[in-house]
C-alpha cells in the first residue's frame, strides 16, 4: 500500500505534469527544429510567435464567451484555434516576405538570420504587449478535471489522490494527433518529402526542380500551426502571460538541441527530457519518500534540489552538458 501511495503521489506531482509540459515543449521545439532544418537558422522569435498565436486565441475566446458560444466541457479556446493559426500564419508569412526573404536573396550567413530573428522577436514582443498588455490572462473555461483528487480517492480507497486536469489530458491528446499528422505529412506526402529533401541537401533539391519559396512558405504555415497550438495548450494549462512565453525560449531551444537541431523525433524526445528534468529537480520529494522508504529513513527536509525559481537553470545545465559531450544532440540533428 505504501509503495502504491508513493507512486500515486509521484504520478500526481511529477509524472502527469511533466508529460503535459513535455508535450507542450515538444510541439514548440518541433517549430524551432523545422525552421532550423529548412531555413537553417535558430529562430529566436519562436517564443513570441507562440505568444502571438495564443493572444489571438485568447481574444477570440473572450469574444465567443461574450456572445455565449461554448464547447461544452472542453475549453472554448479550442474553437478559436483555427482563427489563431490563420492569423499567426499570416503574420509569419508577412514577416518572411518583408524580412527573411531579403536575407535569403543575399544568401546571408546563419548568424545574420539569428540576429534578424532577434529583431523580429522584439517586434512581436512589443506587438503582443501593445494589443493585450503584459499582464496575466486566464482564458480557460469548461470542466476543470477529468478526474479530481476526491473522485480518485473514492474510486481507489487510497490515502493519496491523483488529479488529471482537462488541460493535461487535452494537451497530450492534441500533441499526439498533431505529431501523427506532422510525421505523416513529412514522410508520406510529396510536399513533405520536398521539405525533407530541401532540408537534407538544398543544392540538390533546387536542381531537382523543387521551388525553394514554396518549401519556405509551407514551412512557415506548419510552424504557425505548431506554435499556436503549443502556446494555447500551455496557456490553458497555466495562464497566458507574454513574458512567460518569451522565457520559454530557453527550454524550447534546450529541447530542440538536446534532441538534435533539425530532427523532429529529437525535438519530441528533447521536450520530454527537459520537462521531466525540470519537474523532478524542482519537486519536493519528501512526500514520495515518506511512503517509499522505511520509517526510520524518513527525510526531515523537503528534499527539493532547486526551488522552482531556478527551473530555467535546469534547461541551461542540460544544454551545456549536451553541447559539451554530444553537440549534435541525442538524435544527430541536421536534416528533417
Amino acid at each position, binding site marked *: 500500500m505504501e509503495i502504491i501511495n508513493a507512486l500515486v503521489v509521484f504520478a500526481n506531482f511529477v509524472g502527469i505534469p511533466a508529460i503535459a509540459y513535455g508535450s507542450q515543449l515538444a510541439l514548440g521545439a518541433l517549430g524551432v527544429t523545422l525552421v532550423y532544418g529548412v531555413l537553417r537558422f535558430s529562430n529566436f522569435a519562436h517564443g513570441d510567435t507562440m505568444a502571438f498565436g495564443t493572444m489571438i486565441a485568447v481574444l477570440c475566446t473572450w469574444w465567443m464567451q461574450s456572445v455565449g458560444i461554448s464547447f461544452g466541457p472542453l475549453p472554448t479556446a479550442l474553437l478559436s484555434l483555427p482563427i489563431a493559426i490563420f492569423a499567426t500564419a499570416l503574420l509569419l508569412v508577412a514577416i518572411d516576405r518583408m524580412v527573411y526573404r531579403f536575407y535569403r536573396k543575399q544568401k546571408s550567413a546563419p548568424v545574420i538570420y539569428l540576429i534578424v530573428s532577434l529583431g523580429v522577436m522584439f517586434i512581436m514582443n512589443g506587438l503582443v504587449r501593445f494589443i493585450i498588455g503584459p499582464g496575466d490572462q486566464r482564458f480557460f473555461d469548461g470542466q476543470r478535471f477529468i478526474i479530481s483528487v476526491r473522485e480518485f480517492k473514492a474510486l481507489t480507497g487510497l490515502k493519496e489522490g491523483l488529479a488529471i486536469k482537462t488541460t493535461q489530458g487535452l494537451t497530450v491528446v492534441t500533441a499526439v494527433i498533431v505529431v501523427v499528422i506532422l510525421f505523416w505529412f513529412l514522410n508520406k506526402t510529396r510536399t513533405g518529402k*520536398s521539405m525533407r529533401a530541401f532540408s*537534407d541537401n538544398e543544392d540538390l533539391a533546387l536542381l*531537382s526542380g*523543387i521551388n525553394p519559396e514554396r518549401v519556405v512558405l509551407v514551412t512557415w504555415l506548419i510552424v504557425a500551426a505548431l506554435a499556436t497550438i503549443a502556446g494555447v495548450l500551455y496557456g490553458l494549462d497555466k495562464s497566458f502571460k507574454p513574458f512567460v512565453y518569451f522565457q520559454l525560449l530557453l527550454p524550447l531551444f534546450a529541447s530542440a538541441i538536446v534532441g538534435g537541431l533539425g530532427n523532429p523525433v529529437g525535438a519530441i524526445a528533447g521536450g520530454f527530457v527537459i520537462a521531466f528534468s525540470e519537474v523532478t529537480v524542482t519537486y519536493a520529494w519528501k512526500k514520495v519518500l515518506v511512503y517509499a522508504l522505511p520509517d526510520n529513513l524518513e527525510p526531515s527536509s523537503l528534499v527539493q534540489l532547486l526551488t522552482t525559481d531556478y527551473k530555467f537553470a535546469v534547461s541551461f545545465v542540460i544544454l551545456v552538458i549536451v553541447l559539451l559531450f554530444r553537440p549534435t544532440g541525442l538524435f544527430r540533428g541536421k536534416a528533417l
Partner: protein
Amino acid sequence: MIKVENLHKHFGGFHAVDGASLEIAEGSITGLIGPNGAGKTTLFNVIAGVHAPTAGRVTLKGEDITGLPPHELFHRGVLRTFQIAHEFSSMTCRENLMMVPSGQSGEKIWNTWFARKKIAEEEEALRAKADEVLEFLTISHLADHKAGQVSGGQKKLLELGRTMMVDAKIVFLDEVGAGVNRTLLNTIGDAIIRLNKERGYTFVVIEHDMDFIGRLCDPVICMAEGKVLAEGTLDEIKANEHVIEAYLGTGLKNKQKGAA
C-alpha cells in the same frame, strides 16, 4: 542550343571563368576538358543557375536564361550532375530518384486528400520508373538502402540516374565517370549514347578520361584559366599547340609523333 557569350564569374579578385564563349549544338555530346581549376565546374554552376554570373549571357534556344534559379531551369529541361555526388542522405536510393520529377499532383496539399487515386497512380508510375533506372544502372539491389550509406561510385550512378527520371533537353555531366570502375564506365557511356540517340538528350560532358571523351564526344572544347582554349574534334584538340601546353602535356605529343 545553349549559347554562352563572354561569360565571367569572379570570386573576389579571382577570375574563375574569364570571358568564356561557346555554343552547344542541339543533339550533340560535347566534351569539356581542361586542367584542374580551369573553371569547368564553375561554368556549369553559372549555366545551371547555382551562381549568378559576374557578366555575360546564357541563352537556351535564343531565350535568355542568365541567372535563372536552378528549379526554373529544371522545368525548362536543363539538368546537371555534381562533380562531388550529392544525395538526399536520409532517403533511400529509390526515393532519391522519385524526388526528381516535381510538379505533380501530389505537390498540391489539398490533392493529398481530394485526388488520392490519381496521386497513388502517379506514385506507382514513378516507382516503376525509378526501379527501371536502378535496374539500368545495375544497382537494383540498393533500391532500399539509404543513399547516404552507398559507396562514392554508386552515388555517382545515382547522379546519372536522376537525369534519366525526366525528359531533359540538355544534361550537364560533371565527371560522372570519376571513381566508377571500368566496366561500369562503359555502361554509363552506352547509357549516354542511348539517351542521346533515342531520347534526343543533348549532353555536355566534363571528363579527364580521354578514352571516354574520345568514345562519346564530338566536338570537344578545351578550357584553361577560365577561357576557351580550343574547340574541335578530339584529334584536332590533341594536336593543338595551346592545349598540349596547358593540359595534355608533351608526353602525348611525342607518343603521337611516334605513332605517326
